[in-house]
């Protein structure tokens, strides 16, 4: 398939717990609670049965607002990321647990300790998706408010990680002796003084925990800007990418991997996993039809109008979602929706391209929104979807995918029952977890360099 002699790459899969945008369908009778712990337990158990590398949780720090009011059309509300992952750790054995946590609205000493606790409790299965929110809207819920300039976001995140790594490496490998006879709980010089002084943080003191089995949680990152890519090349071990189309994926993959050498890292030290949705059917046609049904659930008439308002920058509630696009022009209003990822392009040119598309294909507002937002990554029979995933991986458009289901908690059931066995048959996906594997092991990642100075005294 690749035309080369290299061995088949293994596919890596992560399971995205359904989130709080319109990808997640709540109107379906099979849609359960996104808060009750049983949903997390069931979801994790399905993903673990599918031998996924990790469970992925996004984070919310403020409820989204649209036109100055809390957005009410999509699922909203989440548990606390760290607390729910710690609970999931207790009811799972193998699967990695990756949480999205802000480097802006946390402090390194506390967050590093929490992640280390999760890593110890889970036997080395923790990961951290580092995000760098900085807007005043989110800041209103936190002590520091909106104190960070946009260009300082990655500077803070980088320094945050430097401090966190010092904390994770603060205790020596063999720090805990717990020798009841001699009465030594800790070895001599077991704990180093951390004394960090930088533009973002002043942290002096000692860590509170021994090293976990994988020493550092796995670092995940999702930034796409040039700064974000550089940050990823320097620090990230997994990129949660948005480039799920083949050619765009290949170009992103090549670009980011080429930046690794400058940071002394190897090609395989960073895995690239784009987000991917899927719809399965017994035939291609059945899958297409099902995909259409899911899209209609995802884009309700009200959701279609809201989408358009985000681009048009104005109230469009008087327009018929089944009618043509508004005859008025769009204008930029960055504040109409707050608390969500925004389009990189400016609204006016997005509106122009949408209008052109609607006219060319004679689409209503709702049909247009489905066309531009409701695209499913993989549609087809389980065998075809497995082939497509494998094609991406063997041709370096990705190292695997973060699979996003559209139902809580059963959204991955079909994928696990039908697609995973196909991948296993192709020899590109694990059939069992290795005994005692850490998340780092599952992702085939090297251990991070040890920041701790060599011990002054050695154990004789």
């Amino acid at each position, binding site marked *: 398939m690749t035309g080369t002699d290299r061995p088949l790459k293994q596919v890596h899969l992560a399971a995205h717990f359904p989130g709080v945008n319109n990808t997640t369908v709540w109107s379906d009778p099979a849609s359960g609670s996104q808060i009750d712990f049983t949903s997390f337990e069931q979801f994790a158990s399905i993903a673990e049965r599918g031998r996924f590398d990790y469970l992925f949780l996004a984070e919310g720090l403020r409820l989204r607002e649209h036109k100055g009011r809390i957005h009410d059309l999509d699922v*909203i509300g989440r548990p606390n990321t760290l607390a729910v992952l710690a609970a999931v750790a*207790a009811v799972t054995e193998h699967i990695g647990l990756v949480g999205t946590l802000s480097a802006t609205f946390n402090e390194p000493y506390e967050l590093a300790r929490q992640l280390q606790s999760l890593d110890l409790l889970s036997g080395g299965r923790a990961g951290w998706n580092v995000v760098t929110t900085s807007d005043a809207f989110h800041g209103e*819920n936190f002590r520091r408010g909106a104190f960070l300039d946009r260009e300082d976001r990655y500077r803070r995140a980088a320094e945050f990680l430097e401090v966190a790594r010092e904390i994770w490496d603060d205790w020596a490998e063999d720090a805990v002796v*717990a020798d009841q006879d001699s009465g030594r709980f800790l070895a001599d010089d077991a704990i180093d003084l951390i004394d960090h002084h930088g533009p973002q943080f002043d942290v002096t003191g000692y860590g509170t*925990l021994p090293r976990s089995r994988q020493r550092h949680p796995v670092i995940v990152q999702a930034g796409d800007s040039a700064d974000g890519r550089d940050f990823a090349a320097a620090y990230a071990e997994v990129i949660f990418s948005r480039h799920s189309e083949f050619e765009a994926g290949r170009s992103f993959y090549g670009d980011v991997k080429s930046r690794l050498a400058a940071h002394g890292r190897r090609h395989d030290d960073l895995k690239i996993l784009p987000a991917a949705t899927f719809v399965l059917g017994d035939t291609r046609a059945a899958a297409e039809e099902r995909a259409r049904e899911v899209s209609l659930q995802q884009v309700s008439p009200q959701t279609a109008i809201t989408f358009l308002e985000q681009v048009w920058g104005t109230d469009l509630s008087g327009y018929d979602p089944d009618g043509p696009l508004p005859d008025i022009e769009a204008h930029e209003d960055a504040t109409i929706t707050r608390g969500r990822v925004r389009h990189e392009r400016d609204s006016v040119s997005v509106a122009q391209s949408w209008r052109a598309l609607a006219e060319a294909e004679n689409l209503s507002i709702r049909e247009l929104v489905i066309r531009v937002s409701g695209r499913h990554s993989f549609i087809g029979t389980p065998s075809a979807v497995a082939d497509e995933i494998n094609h991406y991986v063997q041709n370096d458009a990705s190292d695997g995918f973060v699979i996003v289901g559209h139902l809580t908690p059963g959204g991955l059931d079909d994928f696990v029952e039908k697609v995973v066995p196909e991948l296993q048959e192709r020899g590109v996906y694990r059939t069992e977890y290795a005994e005692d594997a850490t998340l780092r092991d599952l992702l085939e990642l090297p251990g991070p360099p040890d920041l701790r100075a060599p011990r002054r005294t050695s154990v004789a």
Partner: protein
Amino acid sequence: MTQPPIYLAVALDGAGWHPSAWREPDARSAEIFGGAYWRDLARTAENGGIDLLTIEDALGLQTPALGDIDPTVTNEVRGRLDAVLLASWLAPLTNRIGLVPTVTTTHTEPFHVSTAIATLDYASNGRAGLRAQVSGRSHEAAHFGRRSIPRLHPGRLDSAEGVAALNELFDEAADALEVVRRLWDSWQDDAVIRDQATGRFIDRDRLHYIDFTGEQFTVRGPSITPRPPQGQPLVTALAHQTIPYRLAGRQADIVYITPHDDAQVLSIAAEVRAAERFVGRRGTPLGVWADILVVLDDTPDAARRRLERLDDQHGTPLTSDALIFTGTPGGLVEQLLHWSALGIDGFRLRPAALPHDLQQIADRVVPLLTSSAALDRDRDATTLRSFLGFEPAPNRYTDEPLFGAAGERIAS
């Protein structure tokens, strides 16, 4: 006269509250940084019929009392797992016991604290609480680098600077707990509507901005996490003097106090009630629970000998802010019944050594209390609040508020 109910908590920390406990033959000292050890302790407590467990924590290594940190100490347990995450880990592994981790209010984000405890409440189906703790430790402030906290010496807490420093810390703690509680209420229980006709998942009129403004922070809200099963998880605090009693009076459901004799039981309880009046507490009065550090064996002599052995091993006698009870389970039960008759609602027992003293509480103390009818419980109760006899928590955004208006200060 009928015996009033006696509620029972066990305070878990490391290998127990004696600094040499980790050297006991049955101690699992090498395992205290892993989950299995804590699961076994929690199940022992739960199977023994104990109402709730607390987990000690701090934002730094253990130190003696208010003393300085000393990384060269190698003969005591050092290091702790994050208590909130440990409690979350225990939630799906237990069924009935209340889970009450320590939460530092000084450097942490009230928003994160609120969602974490709400999540603990979901994961445990309504068994969550917290033990609020301020950090007056300069070495912990240095972990955050945002402000310096002057060293507080126990002997100088009554000085003008001592009182000012305490007031600042406890006012901030009251603000943090106010935010935590408002955020819990910021979603009405019926906020999620899933209304197909209008396409609305939520009725946004049932969500509330909390708009808290205090000296140290402002928080807009609403929470990201829906109102937890208990509505208001249990808030508890350990307190030793007037300023902390006032914090408890304003924001807690239960205060742990540390009397050493009958006279102190009465005088501290009176101080707590005075603090409640001072802060204008309305609604349910504080539950007043006494902390006792326990060394328990079959005979008083055996208990004394074990304590001596532990003390010798460590080189210094055990000291504690709480009463140290050294004796038999029967003797302890007499003490508990006696203090219960003086008005104490519950007890937080600190086992000197784990698992030994916890096992003694579970296997011996609880059955003796049960036979005195002191542990009669509402068998239909499913949440920690209801188990402890608290009414369902009203929502401040739809019902009459329980506590004083925002901005009331603890200090006069």
